[in-house]
Structure formats: C-alpha cells, structure tokens
C-alpha cells in the first residue's frame, strides 16, 4: 500500500514539475521573401537604404519613403493620423509600421500589393504621396553620379533598371527585423516577465492572439477592427471586389506598438489606452470576425495588465539601430551632389 502511494506521489510530483516548466518558445515561421545572392550583398542593402531616404523618388524631390516611415517610431509616421505627401497633400490612411517584412504575404492596409518588390511603386506613383512616374525616377537615378557608382558596385554596371531599384529597396527593407524585445528575451529563456506582464500575456492569449498571432503578432489576415467606417474607405473590399471584404483591413503587427502611434487604419486613436478601451468594451460598431465576437469585456486592471504585456514588445535596439537610419556617411562618401 505504502509503495503504491509512493508511486502515485512520484507521478503526481512529476506532473507538478512539468507544469512549472516555462512554456516552449513560439517558433518563427518560414520567411516568405527569398533574397537573391545580390540582395544579400551589404552594398545592395546600402543602395536600398540610400533610395529609401532619398526624396529623388518623388516628383519634386521633397518626399522620401522615410518621410512617412521614420526609423525612430518603428518606421511609421508619428503624430500623423494619415500621412501627408507632396505639396502637403493629405493621404487617406495611417502609414503602417515597417518591420519583419520578410514574413509578409501582402502589403498596405488593404493588401493591395502582393510582393515586397512591388510595394514602392504604389507610393512613388500615388498622386497624394510622391506623385512621380517610374520612367522619370529611373531617368533621375541614371543621371546621378552617386547612383551610377552604387549600381555599378552592386550589379557590375551602372545601368539603373526598375528591377534593380526595386530589389535593392527590398534588400534594405528585409533588414528591418525586430526580434530583440523583452518578449523575445523571455521566449529565448533569457528573461522573465513580471507578474503583471505575465497576467497581461495570459489576457493577450485569451483575447488578442487569434488575430495578432505570435511571434509576428499578426496573422497577416484582414479583419474588421470594429470601428465605424469614415468616408469612402472600404479597405480590402476595394481590392477583391467581394462584398463581404468591405470594411476589412490588414491586421497590423503589435510589435513596437508603443512606438507606432497613432493607431487603426485611419489613425483615429491617438493613444494605446484608446485602443485598449475600444477592445476591452467588446462592443463594436461594425460586424466583426468570429474571434472578436468571442471577446469578453475587460476591466481597468486587466487593461493595465494587457498594456504592460504589450510594452514588452518594444524593441529599442530595432528602433534605434544605426544601420536603419539616414545614411549620412554613404551620401558623403558617394557624393551628396547627385
């Protein structure tokens, strides 16, 4: 009898110990963007960086990609509900944060773009953003001594082509990887959440993870965010032409969400607390997805816990990474005078 009791206690003890072990780390999926050999060359990345920060891509050389995607706010446009482009023209959507793009299958809030290479063509030619024509962009780059030198160094000759320009931009954008937050350290077993963060993590998994799925904190899908539409923006429906897609927008990543305010596709929520309140009420103004219908209201304490967890997704080493910033030295060494 005593022996049986001993065995039972040992088994019980083993299960108890297992339940105390940390949860296994969340695995990152395979990247969807495959870099070519040229794109892996650091000079190609530098060329892409030079293009990203250069207003030469716009009609009057006033607007660069970085104008609306600032590195220090996770490559979004801080304090602007929607971006303003050339001639102070106002766009209609909030500039999305840029990170971990190698895992993205679609781009833009409505998923209009199906490949990272093709993404820059949209803002370059959009009349509200850069308002430029592709042939003229190539002409300007070809006329630039700096870019002739850079293209020669990367591709073996100085010819500027659409494909080379776009793939160079992709090479730089792919380097914008954010995976060094406290959350990531916990996943790697290098840190522990505080009790509040751990409570927030449990709430996150219960309420948010279905759409903002770990470890990218987006499932890449399109959902209604539950806020009433303003104006004539029908989101995903404008691209697919399918009625049920109307009002759906891409699920944004929550990585670096602390930096990437304002929030929602039209930037209508200025603070993270506004977003917390919106979702915690679990009372939405539009038809929402099955996942959101399952959401239960959260009280203030729970909102604070959840916010505490979301702050663990801040990756300051990403946001302040020098290699992502304005390439002063490159412009200097390759002649600022284009």
């Amino acid at each position, binding site marked *: 009898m005593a022996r049986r009791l001993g065995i039972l206690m040992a088994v019980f003890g083993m299960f108890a110990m297992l339940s105390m072990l940390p949860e296994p780390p969340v695995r990152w999926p395979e990247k969807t963007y495959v870099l070519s050999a040229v794109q892996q060359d650091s000079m190609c990345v530098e060329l892409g960086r030079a293009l990203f920060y250069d207003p030469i891509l716009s009609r009057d050389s006033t607007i660069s990609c970085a104008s609306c995607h600032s590195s220090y706010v996770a490559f979004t446009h801080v304090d602007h509900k929607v971006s303003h482009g050339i001639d102070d023209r106002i766009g209609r959507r909030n500039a999305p944060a840029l990170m971990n793009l190698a895992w993205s299958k679609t781009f833009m809030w409505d998923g209009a773009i199906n490949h990272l290479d093709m993404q820059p063509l949209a803002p370059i*030619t*959009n009349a509200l953003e850069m308002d430029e024509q592709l042939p003229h962009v190539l002409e300007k780059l070809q006329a630039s001594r700096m870019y002739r030198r850079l293209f020669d160094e990367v591709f073996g000759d100085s010819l500027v082509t659409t494909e080379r320009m776009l793939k160079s931009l992709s090479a730089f954008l792919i380097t914008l990887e954010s995976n060094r937050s406290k959350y990531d350290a916990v996943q790697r077993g290098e840190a522990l959440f505080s009790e509040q963060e751990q409570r927030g993590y449990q709430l996150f998994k219960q309420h948010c993870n279905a759409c903002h799925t770990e470890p990218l904190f987006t499932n890449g899908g399109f959902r209604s965010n539950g806020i009433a539409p303003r104006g004539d923006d029908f989101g995903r429906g404008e691209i697919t*032409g399918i009625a049920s897609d109307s009002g759906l927008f891409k699920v944004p990543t929550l990585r670096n969400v602390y930096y990437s305010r304002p929030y929602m596709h039209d930037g209508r929520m200025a603070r993270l607390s506004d977003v917390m309140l919106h979702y915690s009420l679990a009372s939405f103004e539009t038809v929402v997805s099955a996942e959101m219908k399952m959401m239960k209201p959260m009280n203030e304490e729970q909102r604070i816990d959840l916010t505490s967890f979301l702050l663990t997704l801040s990756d300051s080493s990403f946001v302040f990474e020098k290699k992502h910033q304005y390439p002063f030295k490159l412009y200097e060494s390759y002649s600022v005078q284009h």
Partner: protein
Amino acid sequence: MRTVFLCLALLFSVHVSLWAQTEVSIQFVPCWKDGQVITANQIIADSSIDSLQLNTMRFYLHKVELTFEGKQVWAPNNEHFLVDVMDDKRASVQLILPEHLKYDELSFVVGVDSALQVNGAHSGVLDAMEGMYWTWQSGYIHWKLEAEAKIGGNRETITWHVGGYRQPFNTLRRVSLPAVSGRTTMKIGIDVFSLLAAKQTDIDYTIMSPTKHAMDLADQFQNAFRWLAD
C-alpha cells in the same frame, strides 16, 4: 573509309533535317468590320459610329501552342510577348518552329501568367516601365485599349485596362484559331468593332480594375481575334 564517310554524311543530313527550323512571323493589326485594317491616326466613321480614333492597343501573350488534330505538337516555353499593334516594331511575334511541322490550330493566352504576377519585380517586357503594370494594386494589365470616339452624338474617351489574375476576376483568356501549317507570315486582326458592338447594351467606357465588367470585356477580347489575308 569511304563507307564510313558516307554514313557520317547521311547521319549529319538526317540530323540537320530533324533539327531544321523555320521562322514564322505573326503580325497583329487592329481592324474594323470586314477586316478593314485600322492604321495609326485613322479616324473611323460609318453608319455604326460617328467617329473613332484608336490611340493605344497593347497586350501580353504567352503559352503559345500549336496543335494537330487536337494534340499538342509545339509548345516551346512560357515566354511572354508584349504586342503593340500601333507600333510596327512591336506588332509582330516571331516563332521558331521545326521545319515541316504540321498543325491545324494556333492558340495563346492573352495576359501575364498568374505565377509571374506574385513573385516580384521582372525585367524585359515584364518591366513595370512598360506601363502595363498597375501600381495602386499588384498586377499586370493583360491588355489595354485607349481611343477617342463620338458615339450617338456623344464624345467618349475609351480607357479599357483589363487585368486580374485571381478569382473571381481572373481575366486571362486563351485564344484559339484554326491554322494552316507551312506559312512563314501570318496576319491576325483584332476586331475593334466587335468589342464596341458587344458593349453597346451595357456601356462602360472606363474599365481600369479587375471587375465583372473587365471579365465581360475579356470574353469579348478573346473572340475578337481573326485571320486576315496577308
């Protein structure tokens, strides 16, 4: 020694005849009723239309195939061609065929292969510089027609940019035409009148995105190809 030489010569001639090739040029031209070729800057006017001036007609084609009695006899690769019927230098497609190939049907797909639409930037005729790529959303324009017209007393600007590679608005279409083998030049007309006539009951002169209208127009374009006399 002499026998060996003769055998080698025979083998060589058999090899040469097996691999002998011939170039076939297919020219595409816009046409009106009864195959009347529309030339650049020409203004069409007849009982069916007050006036029509065609400014642009360009299209991609790929997956060219030749068949004989229903069986494929030639399908070289998935090369894409960009045809511009208003530009003599780009109005023809050259095919290199095995000499004496027998076929009775020519077919090709109008548009850009769906697989190439989703794998990034391309060069050559698929360079976005060609003006056949939508920038506001990803996807090639399979074909475009732009014209100024006066119809029923009203001035109309026709802008048809037809594209779409995903369901439910996949506007890729395979065109099939009976063919006679042995010719080195062929001329295929694209009947603009049939496109306009088909649209008369539901006129939408501006189509620039993948929609139901684009699907209807793609169906009409598929049936607008016909042989013309050289």
